[in-house]
């Protein structure tokens, strides 16, 4: 492994450490400075002025899951687009046709989802 490569990730590691330590330090310092007077009303969940009345983890509708699923599928598609776009200049026309077939397959899936009214909210 190249030394430059490892050293550049050392900087990433330093940033990771700063990113973890900064909130920990800030919150600890805040805990030392602020007054600590807990009461029942302060510990309720903030719900924009309404009184919270139910458990927050209710059963969701299946529609949300459909959107999450579409998101994952097209996320994977996007990941395949990245190396293609980076190496595009060296690949030529054949890769373009390849990628068109690939995208066409997923467009078929999208049209199917559209026809099945997955994309409609209500």
């Amino acid at each position, binding site marked *: *492994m*190249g030394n430059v*490569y*490892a050293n550049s*990730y*050392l900087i990433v*590691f330093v940033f990771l450490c700063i990113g973890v330590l900064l909130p920990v330090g800030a919150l600890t310092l805040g805990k030392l400075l602020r007054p600590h007077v807990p009461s029942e009303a302060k510990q309720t969940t903030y719900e924009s002025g309404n009184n919270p009345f139910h*458990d927050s*983890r*209710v*059963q*969701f*509708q*299946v*529609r*949300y*899951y*459909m959107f*999450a*699923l*579409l*998101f*994952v*599928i097209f*996320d*994977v*598609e996007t*990941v*395949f687009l*990245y*190396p*293609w*776009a*980076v*190496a*595009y200049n*060296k*690949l030529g026309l*054949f*890769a373009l046709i*390849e*990628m068109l*077939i*690939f995208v066409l*397959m*997923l467009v*078929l*899936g999208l049209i*199917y*989802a559209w026809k*099945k009214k*997955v994309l409609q909210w209500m």
Partner: protein
Amino acid sequence: MSGEYLAFLALALVAITGGVLMLNLTKVVHMVIALVFTFISIAGLYVLLSAEFVAVVQVLIYSGAVTIMMLFGIMLTRHQEEEGEKTTTGGFWRKALTAIAVFAFGIAVYLGVYRLDFGEEGARLHENNTEQIGMALYSHYTIPFEIASVILLVALVGAIILAKKDDEGAPKS
């Protein structure tokens, strides 16, 4: 004892701890957090192996999208009653057999991996990693790439069929 070795040890430890915590924690959302730790430390291991693109994909797909999917899956199911009493399943013999199987699997993997020869190590992997992947994927591995698109299509259509059937069975709210 190089820095690379230390980083490997730390990342492997976080990955295994995340996996064990995921199995042992009782609240489902905490389990997902433990799983995210495992995913991210695996991404760190990919970085150590000079596979930067795969590392970024690991963070993007696994700790991003798959975790969201799991959270939605959790939110879709009823999970309040799970936080009751814990029942232990299986007697002593079953546990012993499971332990033996786990250790046998570990030893088999160790023996298989320890002297495994992967050939020459790619010394230039970290230079333009994404471009190298693109060149290999779109010139040598065309058919697997297109098959991947078919698999994605099948997953999409299958998921829609399964979820729509659920949706129509449920009362509209």
